[in-house]
């Protein structure tokens, strides 16, 4: 099974699948008021990953109504007057909302899960990294700069072939090892696989301000 892996803080890809199923069940029970995590199969229908999308993470008032696309002369174009009738509500300045997509994908070379995420506004335009940083809770920003376990990098999503941000996995096995060794009960009862993702996400989720309720760890 995986005791040797557990000792190293890693897990096999099959065990990732097992842990993911347990995680989904656990989450949907404990966090029923949250949108559910779903398991998405890759196009080859062999591998899969966990997905939680369209999370509303922030809404602040918009500062100015500038169009997002820079370019000369775009305002100079005379648009034909378009019919608007009285029955149409004229939009006031809407709230600036940021949406986040989170994917948990298994990494073969490091043998650990990796959190991929992206952020975009209500038009679908991807957010810049510093805008994302502004969304992050204050403790997370500090943790990112202090800790050598967590680096946010931008890399190609393994299935979608577009750049997503991810928390680099190079330190994961080391701190997962510490997590599991610290809790003897976990190591002995052998439920380490099923709780792996919960434990992992409780650390990693912090970075994007996702809190894992304690109840999830006690679920078994």
């Amino acid at each position, binding site marked *: 099974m995986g005791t040797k892996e557990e000792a190293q803080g890693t897990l096999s890809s099959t065990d990732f699948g097992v842990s993911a199923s347990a995680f989904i069940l656990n989450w949907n029970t404990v966090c029923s008021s949250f949108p559910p995590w779903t398991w998405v199969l890759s196009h080859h229908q062999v591998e899969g990953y966990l997905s939680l999308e369209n999370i509303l993470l922030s809404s602040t008032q918009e500062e100015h109504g500038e169009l997002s696309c820079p370019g000369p002369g775009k305002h100079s174009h005379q648009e034909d007057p378009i019919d608007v009738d*009285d029955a149409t509500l004229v939009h006031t300045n809407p709230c600036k909302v940021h949406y986040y997509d989170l994917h948990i994908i298994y990494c073969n070379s490091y043998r650990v899960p990796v959190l991929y995420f992206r952020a975009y506004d209500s038009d679908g*335009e991807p957010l810049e990294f510093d805008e994302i940083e502004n969304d992050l809770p204050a403790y997370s920003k500090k943790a990112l700069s202090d800790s050598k376990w967590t680096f946010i990098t931008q890399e190609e999503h393994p299935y979608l072939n577009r750049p997503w941000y991810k928390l680099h996995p190079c330190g994961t096995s080391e701190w997962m090892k510490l997590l599991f060794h610290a809790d003897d009960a976990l190591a002995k009862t052998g439920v380490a696989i099923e709780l792996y993702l919960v434990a992992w996400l409780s650390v990693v989720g912090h970075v994007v301000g996702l809190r894992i309720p304690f109840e999830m760890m006690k679920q078994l």
Partner: protein
Amino acid sequence: MASESIVVFAQFQSAVDEGFWHRFSSLKLNKLGIDDSPIPITGFYAPCSHPQVSNHLTLLAESLPSESNEQSSTAATSGGNRNRCPVPGILYNTNTIESFHALDKKSLLKAEAKKIWDDIHTGKAVEDSAVLSRFLLISFADLKKWTFHYWFAFPALVLDPPATLVDLRRASQYFSLEEAKSVSAACNEWRNSSLTADVPFFLVCVDPNSLATVKHIKDWETCQSDGNKLLFGFYDPCHLPNNPGWPLRNFLALISVRWNLKSVRFLCYRENRGFADLGLSLVGEALITVPQGRAAKTGNGLGWRDHQCLPNAVGWEQNKGRQVSRCISLAKSMDPTRLAISAADLNLKLMRWRALPSLNLNALSSMKCLLLGAGTLGCQVARMLMAWGVRKITLVDNGRVAMSNPLRQSLYTLDDCLNGGEYKATAAVKSLGRIFPAVDAEGVVMAIPMPGHPVPSQEEDNVLEDCRRLHDLVDSHDAVFLLTDTRESRWLPTLLCANTNKITITAALGFDSFLVMRHGAGPFSSNDERQRLGCYFCSDVVAPIDSTANRTLDQQCTVTRPGLAPIASALAVELLVGILHHPQGIFADGELANSSNSGSCEQPLGVLPHQIRGSLSQFSQMTLVGQSSNSCTACSSTNIRKEEWNLSSKQSIILPI
């Protein structure tokens, strides 16, 4: 709500996922080309699920037809679920920004409105109600800049006169407690069944015993018993408490035409956390007074019952209150050059984070390197420099690529050899650009003036010009690599570098041995009397002479074991990086490998040697230190002053005496 006012509808809002543009770009590049016929697409929406934020009509990668050769001329509505009600739409993409702005928006909107009108009259809208929310998208995809201009329209048939609002309140205030419970349960059941979850228009029938059922709108006949409350329900993307969402507009049109109702009670169905939320949902009553029988404006006499009489339509989406198109730039995630740059940066950053926190990436990326020689050594050094993040590289070589070159000179291929062969400097620059498009590479086709080689009198001015050019090149770069294939061609560059105190790295190859070294600081570089490290010529006892005359072919071509050049080039670049990270830079003392000189060995990159001599026959390598010589023919102060005088008086010591 007592006063009678018209119903004011909140417009649909669009949201386009990045994946849609990615997929569309791919479709355009691989399949469509310049074909700009309209494309059927599918939009997705769901009822509002948040009290402060409306839901959007979303386009995803799946909204487009697949790229495989399944011909589908009708809108293939891909699978929906409770969070994704599919809605048919059409995309008009133009090939230029001018034609984008020139599209006749009025008539395009009218055409889509007509489709809705037709579906209402033929009854299709009763069977497949999602067609009531049919939408239109016009776009211009600029695939050079990766920007996308677009504009949505959500055609709505205009009721003339407009519908008046008799009443609008929260659903929880309209229904009794019992009724509310039953309505919620029935709606949740509708939403949880895979057969109905994505059907956005429905009927809610509440019998006198407060029992509610939700039915398809085609079952309208069956809800007609007395005492039943009948509401026309629809998934409302809008969250506002005083306005119903856009889908109600065409729903009212349908109700008026099909069933000739004047008074319509409607349910704006909204959710919270996946369940019906009757506090957020609204129930209202609207009065429709469009002419049905008397003469309509077009003078036909049948009003709305007349299929031929298309009402006006509105629906172009406002952009922050203005009637203009939207624009989104996806260059960062789609432009291959940008992606290559960020991938390259990431690699170096990872090195810095995990292994070498003191790595100075800025110094590397801003360093300007001059490579004299674009042969076996030059090609490899250039590649290694790029791998370290150096972007500004100049290559100097006057030769052309020969047939034997591509094997050992890693920037060239057979194509460069044809038709006499391209100039190496030019071919190298092109090659570097193909490897990493953001490199700033320049090629200079020029011979390096050499002492001891005879110069015909008609060439004198050219040679002087080359000296001047070389002087300027050395001056305008930060580090110089001497990578030529003769000793004497290294002499003038050494002198020029010593004069301007530039970092200079020499690599020289024998048959199975190599030398890689860094020249010491120039003689005028500092005021103190410390001993400088030597240059390539410091340990000579004679002046460089013409070493190519009277040599056999293999000596002239400096045939070496192929493994040597890559090893020497790699060491040369690593030596440069070491200098850059040493606090004393060019003034750093020469260190020896395995030395017990622990003081200076604490540099993160390790020791910084002066000279590295290696032997392939031994698979061995050693480090050496050599001090500068006061009688060096290249870097001694007396020599440099003499040379300055010579150049300024337009005579060159290169000319044979």
